[in-house]
């Protein structure tokens, strides 16, 4: 399948801030081929990122040299494993401008959000009075947005069902932005928590967090920011953010699967009851009952994902060596180019902000007359990996009146050649299905 259609030449290919060729050499998987010898064009980092050798080496180093259960045992390996685990915690905290005692390791973003949601319902029945500080119950309200990933929506729906609280949400504008016109009424004195994504996984929109935090704190509500799509792609500093919680996943930022982060302001974490209980998180255990460790250990029951945490530490090192400002600029240049190339194809509609103002590198689109699954299949045949479907944000696709979209996402190894391959692939799909 070849495409002879020429692409618009408007000189949008500004030099990329990152050395794509050098970076690609760090990612072993990018040297494999797919579908009969085609170069892998990986445009699905928004689902999960590929891993550089440095991250893989760090995990292997841990298992080959210091493997032991951290925070238990007095042998040398246990000491060294604990050291590696806690060093990584400090490093990952520093990456978001947070002290290490505010960094809780979870399985992923989803579990981090569930941790907070369950802590808020567990609070109602906690025997320790200070753990009841943030209890959610009948008459209370939880606020989300229509832009949330299911992971930042369903746990709050469930919290409301468990406690009798009411779920409210901020809607979206036609151009893919949060509609904050009713912020002052939706977030009110009944609001206990506002959960909002910093960067939409489907629209690419970067949301203004400051006015939401300002309004929420005015009425005494907590703010949780879903950073699953922001922390890997732009500099994020929790002090600047001003929220109470920030959650993100390691596997979307060059790190291993199985490790995510809940950052919480210490004074808030300190007043939350545990979610999962068991070993590691206890202070004293008697048959009659137990007391718990201070944060972050209170929220880390059981032997943790130590090697993965060490791997995430290496991922943070890698990203910091590149520089998060550069990563952000790199993706902005690619996004500008992709928006121009893709929108120029007749029949293609971009779902989300049409330019790079307050916008990240998730580019979702529809192709007239071709279902996203079929677009994805043609792209796959050409070696191009994209995401198709509702992207775990069903209300968003519904809001924009499409059953699903095709989504391309970029990262540090993405170059203009990948975007060109995508645009050519879309034209190939149109040709194959005879829509042009």
């Amino acid at each position, binding site marked *: 399948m070849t495409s002879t259609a020429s692409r618009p030449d408007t000189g949008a290919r500004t030099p990329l801030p990152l050395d794509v060729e050098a970076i690609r050499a760090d990612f072993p998987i990018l040297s494999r081929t797919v579908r009969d010898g085609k170069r892998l064009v990986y445009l699905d980092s928004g689902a999960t990122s590929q891993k550089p050798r440095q991250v893989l080496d760090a995990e292997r180093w841990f298992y080959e040299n210091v493997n032991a259960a951290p925070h238990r045992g007095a042998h040398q390996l246990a000491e060294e494993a604990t050291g590696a685990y806690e060093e990584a915690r400090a490093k990952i905290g520093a990456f978001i401008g947070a002290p290490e005692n505010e960094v809780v390791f979870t399985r992923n973003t989803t579990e981090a959000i569930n941790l907070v949601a369950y802590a808020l319902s567990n609070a109602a029945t906690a025997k320790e009075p200070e753990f009841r500080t943030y209890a959610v119950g009948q008459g209370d309200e939880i606020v989300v947005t229509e832009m949330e990933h299911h992971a930042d929506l369903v746990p709050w729906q469930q919290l409301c069902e468990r406690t009798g609280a009411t779920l409210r949400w901020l809607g979206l504008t036609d151009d893919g932005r949060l509609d904050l016109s009713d912020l002052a009424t939706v977030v009110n004195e009944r609001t206990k928590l506002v959960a909002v994504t910093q960067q939409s996984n489907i629209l690419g929109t970067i949301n203004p967090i400051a006015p939401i935090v300002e309004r929420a704190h005015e009425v005494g509500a907590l703010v949780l920011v879903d950073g699953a799509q922001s922390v890997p792609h732009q500099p994020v500093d929790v002090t600047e953010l001003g929220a109470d919680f920030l959650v993100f996943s390691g596997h979307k930022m060059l790190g291993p699967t199985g490790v995510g982060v809940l950052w919480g302001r210490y004074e808030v974490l300190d007043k939350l009851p545990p979610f999962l209980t068991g070993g590691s998180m206890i202070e004293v255990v008697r048959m009659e009952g137990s007391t718990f460790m201070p944060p972050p250990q209170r929220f880390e029951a059981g032997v943790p994902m130590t090697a993965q945490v060490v791997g995430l530490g290496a991922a943070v090192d890698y990203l910091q060596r590149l520089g998060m400002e550069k990563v952000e600029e790199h993706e902005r240049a690619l996004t500008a180019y992709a928006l121009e190339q893709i929108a120029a194809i007749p029949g293609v509609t971009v779902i989300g902000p049409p330019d790079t103002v307050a916008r990240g590198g998730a580019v979702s689109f529809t192709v007239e007359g071709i279902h*996203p*699954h*079929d677009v994805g299949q043609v792209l796959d*045949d050409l070696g191009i990996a994209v995401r198709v*479907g509702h992207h775990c944000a069903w209300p968003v696709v519904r809001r924009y009146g499409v*059953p*699903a979209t095709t989504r391309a996402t970029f990262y540090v190894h993405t170059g203009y050649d990948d975007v060109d391959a995508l645009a050519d692939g879309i034209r190939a799909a149109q040709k194959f299905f005879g829509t042009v």
Partner: protein
Amino acid sequence: MQLESMYQEIILDHYKNPHGRGLRDPFDAEVHHVNPTCGDEVTLRVKLDGDTVADVSYEGMGCSISQASVSAMYDLVVGKPVAEALETGEHFMTLMQAKGDPAVAEKLEDELEDAVAFAGVSKYPARIKCALMSWMALKDASARALSTTVSATHPTTPAGGQ
């Protein structure tokens, strides 16, 4: 280029000109099935005449594979006894589990007619659900129709498999 093995001409024809599309009255059972991984949906009605499938009518949105599959299924099952229609569904399931093995497709050619063209889909695990959605909906709707119609004095247990 593997694409043509999945998107056989017959599949594209059914997709572009679906047979039996639209929801019709009367009906004995209506079901709504979704593929939660991609959001594809089908609403499907079954009208029985005794033990025979008198009509299958449907509305849905989804990819070419899911839409062509329901169209090909319509051709295969309308006018057949329910038990036979469900058996055809089992054959289609077998085809979907064949991982592209041409021998399986060849063996099922008589039973599956046009639907044997979906053999290429079985090489793509992510798309098998697309092809199966309407057959699952038919199985569900038939079971409901049989349990609600007076004629169902000998309700047929749908042949096994999920």
